[in-house]
């Protein structure tokens, strides 16, 4: 019997790939009074549910989806985990 597994995928730019969005946010921080905040990287997350027989099968589907569509492996890295909303 299949179960519904909630999944979270986080996509961030690979180390060494310029992140103009993160850099712009970081530059704005001192003006807001935030000092000492460094290495800010922007990314995005995706949440969805996968119907599968077990956790392993759910992770396989989510990982394939993350690598084929949700991220561009040329410049991005995706992390996939099972988890709540």
């Amino acid at each position, binding site marked *: 019997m299949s179960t519904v597994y909630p999944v979270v995928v986080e996509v961030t730019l690979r180390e060494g*790939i*310029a992140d*103009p*969005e993160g850099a*712009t946010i970081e530059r704005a921080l001192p003006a807001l009074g935030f000092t000492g905040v460094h290495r800010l990287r922007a990314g995005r997350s995706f949440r969805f549910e996968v119907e599968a027989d077990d956790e392993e099968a759910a992770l396989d589907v989510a990982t394939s989806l993350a690598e084929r*569509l*949700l991220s*561009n492996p*040329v*410049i991005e890295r995706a992390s996939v985990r099972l988890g709540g909303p």
Partner: protein
Amino acid sequence: MTRVGVVVFPGSNCEYDAAAAVEDLGADAQFVWHSATDVAGLDAIILPGGFAHGDYLRPGALARFSPVMEAIAAFAARGGPVLGVCNGFQVLTEAGLLPGALQKNRGLTFLCEPTTVVVTSTRSALTRACHVGQELSIPINHFSGAYTCSDETLAQLVDGDQVVLRYRNNPNGSRDDIAGVSNAEGNVVGLMPHPERAMSSLVGSADGRTLLEGFLRVDVPAP
């Protein structure tokens, strides 16, 4: 008469400019809807600029899965000339038909301005009517136009003479000033500048004609 397919995705917006440009050069333009599964009868294919599938997720990420892309990949594999302009370039990189990726511009600025590009290779379908070192004024109009690739890919591009055009004054943070690249064979080419918008001195430049004339000098692929 050379028949050029201009691919139309939901959200494309430069298809009429592209069609008008190739017809101005004596070719016959034919729109190809993104759900088409067959590109038979076409001598060349252009993926125009715009926002295919709304640019949701990433520019080109969803367009890559449009049914027509499989037919275009097969057309390209048998040597058919394929040109991606701006969003079309983004689609070709996402589809794996061209190396690298296009990122948001340095400084997160949308750029709409004339640029000077320098021809760095004449072995591509787009630049075969040019000479190396030739400078062309072609406008850009994009937010995600910074060409990015790994060190390894860059070395392959340079060694394989696949860097087709470079910006004279890099406007967007593209790696190695790259404005356009080709595949290893040279028949698939992508560039961020819009040659179809540089077809007459009345609009500031007619330099796009040199590029598109070369592209339309089609070697018809075997079916």
